[in-house]
């Protein structure tokens, strides 16, 4: 029974496809999976927007939206209708074609990332050998659409936002990759399906997730920092800082194009959370061996939604960074630490089984973290600000 439930979507797909001629079956299967991805994640997006607005409200001791339907659950529908019916304005001096293409390119690129994520046992659209590489290659192309949007709008806020976005995304792309390279080193594979398989073993009741190793834990934290920056989420939301840049690179977008940017941003959050879960949190595997009867896809989406909640929590807590702080943090703290983490993963690999590698690897990382924190903070002055006025 639980095996059927675990494979329910795969079985449904096979059942639908079986009505077609054999020659069409592979193509139809792929199309069906694409349709599922393209409908499930925007649905999740609507739910997340509501969750975010309610959750942020609660964090600020407000109620949040509660007017549309019971407890405001139809708020996403109202938002959707609003953005669909609004006028689509293109600035007079904008580059029309690029302006039109930018949101489309963003959404398409983000959707492509979902193609290689294993969302459950046997639930991956295409099982490529180098799926991690494919994911990062596709993920990097979102920067292009951001810059297309900022450049084609012919607006100073858009351009500044796009410049910030590109600088930020390229800076944080490096630690994002470097923190995942440790995983590739340990598993010896670039295939995400393989990476999940490696983690899907249990010692007693505890799983072999990479987050439960010193280098995996540090790698996960660094990955989370880089992922937050990569998706332009608070506290790294400089490209769309409302108080400085109106809305950043999508200032000149309205109506459905604006909705597409919004959708693309949240889809990027889902996909990067999904990748984080796959790399460090064991993908679709259950957290305890006695919970394996729960379908694998429940665990995958549960892990994604938990990450999303942490994203929202961070947004409700932290103020926005300054551009120089953002860059200093990326190049002077996060990147060196990912390098040390790679080194640490190598030590872990060659020390072999035993308690010794736990002690050594944890000590190295702890010393690196505290030491680099000290060095980074030593030149900062905390306390009341002093101002000097021009004479």
């Amino acid at each position, binding site marked *: 029974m639980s095996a059927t439930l675990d494979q329910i979507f795969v079985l449904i797909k096979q059942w639908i496809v079986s009505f077609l001629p054999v020659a069409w079956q592979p193509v139809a299967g792929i199309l069906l999976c694409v349709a599922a991805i393209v409908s499930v994640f925007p649905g999740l997006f609507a739910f997340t927007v509501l969750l975010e607005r309610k*959750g942020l409200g*609660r*964090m*600020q*001791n*407000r*109620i949040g939206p*509660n007017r549309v339907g019971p407890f405001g659950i139809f708020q996403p529908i109202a938002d959707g209708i609003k953005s669909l019916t609004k006028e689509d304005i293109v600035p007079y001096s904008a580059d029309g074609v690029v302006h039109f293409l930018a949101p489309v390119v963003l959404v398409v690129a983000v959707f492509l990332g979902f193609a290689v994520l294993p969302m459950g046992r046997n639930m991956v659209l295409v099982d490529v050998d180098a799926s991690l590489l494919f994911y990062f290659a596709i993920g990097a192309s979102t920067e292009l659409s951001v810059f297309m949007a900022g450049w084609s709008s012919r607006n100073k806020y858009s351009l500044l936002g796009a410049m910030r976005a590109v600088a930020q995304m390229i800076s944080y792309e490096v630690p994002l990759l470097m923190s995942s390279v440790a995983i590739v080193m340990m598993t010896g594979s670039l295939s995400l399906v393989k990476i999940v398989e490696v983690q899907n073993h249990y010692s007693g009741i505890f799983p072999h997730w990479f987050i439960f190793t010193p280098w995996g834990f540090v790698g996960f934290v660094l990955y989370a920092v880089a992922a937050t920056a990569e998706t332009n989420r608070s506290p790294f939301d400089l490209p769309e800082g409302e108080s400085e840049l109106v809305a950043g690179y999508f200032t000149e977008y309205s109506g459905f194009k604006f909705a597409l940017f919004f959708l693309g941003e949240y889809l990027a959050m889902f996909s990067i959370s999904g990748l984080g879960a796959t790399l460090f949190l064991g993908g679709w595997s259950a957290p305890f061996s006695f919970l394996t009867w729960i379908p694998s896809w429940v665990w995958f989406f549960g892990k994604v939604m938990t990450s999303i909640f942490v994203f929202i*929590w*961070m947004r*409700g*807590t*932290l103020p926005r960074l300054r551009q120089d702080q953002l860059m200093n943090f990326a190049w002077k703290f996060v990147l060196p630490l990912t390098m040390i983490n790679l080194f640490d993963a190598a030590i872990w690999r060659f020390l072999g089984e035993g308690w010794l590698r736990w002690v050594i690897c944890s000590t190295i990382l702890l010393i690196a*973290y*505290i030491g*680099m*924190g000290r060095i*980074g*903070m030593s030149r900062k002055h905390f306390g009341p600000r002093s101002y000097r006025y021009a004479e």
Partner: protein
Amino acid sequence: MLGEGILKGLAETAKNFAGSFVSAERLTTVEYPEQRIAPIEATRDFPFLVYDGEDWEAGMRCVSCQICEKECPPKCIYIEKSKDKKPDALGKPQFYPTRFDIDISVCMSCQICVEVCPFEAIKMDTEFELSTTDRFGGLLHDRKQLSRSNEYYHRIHPTEAAEVDARLAEEKAKADAKAKAAAEAAAAKATAAAATPPAAIPPVGGA
């Protein structure tokens, strides 16, 4: 250590998140159309015209002196003075406004009209839900729409209205006393005139 502040902040927001479901005093939101906070006594937004008694037209205190019209900084008051006179609250014949319009889309709630009015005829209201679907005609209030009874004034600004009533009563008493004194003086004069032979004084007015 680096990151301590972030953890503290996260704990604080988590406390808020959980606490807002448990303790009601955390949520300070007033859900406006259903829940309302009573306005404080000093609330003021747009002016209205005070009338005494039951009939708004007969009891209107405004004597159409047009001071408020001239003083109004954004010029949102328009008054047309009557040709005839009718008795006011003190019984003295006065002009009255045949038209008194306030465009509340122009009014800036400065209360200068209230301060300059010598007859306590224009006061500030607390009514704020004045939105209409007609942005020109709907926001131009005529004298009938602007009229409110003195009782209403007592209800919304009790202290201020009591002061105004006391002042008016004092003025009325003063006026009554003056009238009485004048009447007495006239009567005394008349009796004095009656006591002396009429031929002794020259005729008044020099007939």
